């Protein structure tokens, strides 16, 4: 049973500030969601995995010494493969809302480390749900699971909506499939407020550098600065539904504000090819691309100079490619009142501008975020 007094406070007043726990806080979505929740008055606890590499660039601007007064953003070392660690942290933090954004999220890497991917992405989700149960927080904590359009893989219908059957095509997607269903199962079995957001591709200037969109915009900036000759890509005709991460974290938050937990597709409902992303990105930097040749020999040529700016490297083809991913966000629009607000063209421009600024030295790498202030 929900506590009506607490619920009323929540809806009407800001008297009880909420506490959120975000796993995967150092990633793109973790950074945008932290900013959103801090702006809404939340206290935010982020979990990051140990690493010998510096990887907190995306949230550095939010971080202050926890000994100072009034600090509302905290980071903890956490690991989804360690239940004891998750339970202890959850016990200390007592979050009202948990956003599980942590994952080995690279599709290609999941073919190389399938067992680890299953452990972190699949069973890791189970460990969080179990931590909630063991601590008796089933009725007080709300849980968001970052599901993905990769679940549709070999698509069974187009566009894809909440009722479209899944057909995962990678160890990453198979692990995420387990996470999706275990979230649904804990909702139905234990009455937990647990929901899935099935997010289609969402990008931003702080997207990981190995994701195709960011790889393109960085290459455009590097080529324009004269420090790179050519951009190598895989399948130019792969079609994706690309939105802006800033819009999508708003959707995550709305999912947890519903009285009833449920699963939602978050997508733009538009589709674009890698090729058109490339054309727009180069176009914004003042190049005009002309394509010539076919298949692995296709080349993108700069109309002005005749230089080859884009080539194909078959190494980037996936062992099993997914088909046209196009989401139908009707349910999110009608129930959550959510829809994407950043047009595709603006997304590409923002990413190219940020990478060009970073290369020009007007911003330091990793912090090239057009970050809105936290408060």
């Amino acid at each position, binding site marked *: 049973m929900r506590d009506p007094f607490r619920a009323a406070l929540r809806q009407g007043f800001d008297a009880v500030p909420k506490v959120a726990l975000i796993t995967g806080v150092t990633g793109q979505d973790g950074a945008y969601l932290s900013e959103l929740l801090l702006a809404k008055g939340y206290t935010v606890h982020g979990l990051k995995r*140990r690493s*010998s590499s*510096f990887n907190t660039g995306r949230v*550095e601007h939010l971080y202050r010494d926890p000994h100072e007064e009034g600090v509302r953003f905290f980071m903890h070392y956490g690991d989804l*493969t360690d239940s004891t*660690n998750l339970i202890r942290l959850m016990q200390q933090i007592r979050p009202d809302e948990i956003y599980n954004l942590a994952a080995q999220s690279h599709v290609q890497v999941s073919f190389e*480390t399938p*067992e*680890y991917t299953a452990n972190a992405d699949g069973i890791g989700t189970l460990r969080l749900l179990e931590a909630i149960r063991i601590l008796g927080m089933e009725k007080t904590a709300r849980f968001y699971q970052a599901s993905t359009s990769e679940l549709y893989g070999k698509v069974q219908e187009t566009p894809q909506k909440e009722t479209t059957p899944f057909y995962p095509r990678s160890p990453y997607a198979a692990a995420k499939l387990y996470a999706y269903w275990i979230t649904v199962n804990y909702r139905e079995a234990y009455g937990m407020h647990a929901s899935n957001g099935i997010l289609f591709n969402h990008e931003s200037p702080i997207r990981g550098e190995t994701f195709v969109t960011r790889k393109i915009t960085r290459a455009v900036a590097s080529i324009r600065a004269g420090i790179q000759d050519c951009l190598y890509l895989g399948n130019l005709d792969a079609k994706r539904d690309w939105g802006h991460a800033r819009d999508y974290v708003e959707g995550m938050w709305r999912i947890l504000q519903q009285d009833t937990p449920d699963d939602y597709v978050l997508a733009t409902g538009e589709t674009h090819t890698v090729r058109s992303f490339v054309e727009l990105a180069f176009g914004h930097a003042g190049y005009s691309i002309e394509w010539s040749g076919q298949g692995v020999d296709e080349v993108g040529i700069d109309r002005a100079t005749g230089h080859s700016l884009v080539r194909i490297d078959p190494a980037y083809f996936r062992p099993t490619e997914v088909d046209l991913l196009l989401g139908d966000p009707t349910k999110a629009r009608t129930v959550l009142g959510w829809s994407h607000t950043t047009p595709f063209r603006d997304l590409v421009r923002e990413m190219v501008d940020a990478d060009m600024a970073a290369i020009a030295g007007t911003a330091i790498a990793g912090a090239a975020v057009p970050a809105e202030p936290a408060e």
Partner: protein
Amino acid sequence: MSRGRTALIFGIGGQDGAWLADLLVRRGYAVHGTSRDREASSFANLRRLGVIDRVRLHSVALGDFRSVAQALKEVRPDEIYNLAGQSSVGLSFEQPVETLDSIVHGTVNILEAIRFLKLDTRFYNASSSECFGNTAQGRPAAEDHPFHPRSPYGVGKAAAYWAVANYRESYGLFACSGILFNHESPLRPARYVTQKIVRGAADIAAGQADRLRLGELSVARDWGWAPEYVDAMRRMLGHDRPEDFVIATGALHTLEEFVRLAFEGFGLDWREHVEIDPALKRPADITHSVGDPGKAKRLLGWQAETTMPGVVAKLVEAERTRRRSGAPLEAPLPVPA
């Protein structure tokens, strides 16, 4: 002699991995390295040493047998160095399962992969002085000193040590453990106490902070210089028999002496700036830990050149240089209790 040899370093992104990669590249090895996620890792240490373009990188999660076996099969290394795994004693109290998993399960996966692929290779495993716990009063620990680990990290390292010995004896693998005492360099992340002290003192000297919170200062350790220690690893695999070696300076110093020297290095009196925070003390700590490197000197011709005062001087100098060059600071993460 080493020209044409191929080495595979598990955990190449860490302090020791980067120093070892640098050493082996300079000695003419073809060097391959692994990290959990090659795509996401920034490999800042390899970049800092300027060797990122001279090594080949693979994505390997040590708990994932396929990824370990696949890397061994592709690289077919003459020498394998396992430097991967959770490496912070403090964090091991917070993440005991992940710590044990990455250290023990990871080491056994490599041993099993060598066995499975029937590789003719030499294997070095990074063991640790943490296996010993407190070393006997007045006598530095040699290889035969009993184990009594005092943290989940030490427990994992002790189990991995015995797994290596067991595979050597059971299957005749050329497998050895280097029982390394503390070894430092500027490549340590900020969560390690030595970097925390040096950077903290530098911040105070620069007027960016006025206090530094530390845990127990009476603990005593045997501190050496990491670049020298990775050379001992290479020598172990070049020895004619697989054996375990203690690698240490043989000199014992308290953390308080370390703090005093570091602050003096920046022209400061530590007593005016250091605050003892009981919350930073560990559930169980080692009070004194010092090693006897006699066997390494006799059989490998290795001995430490730099002892604790020299280590501190080098760390202070490196921090000054870094600040002058304006290299970015790591985010100040909370140090686990």
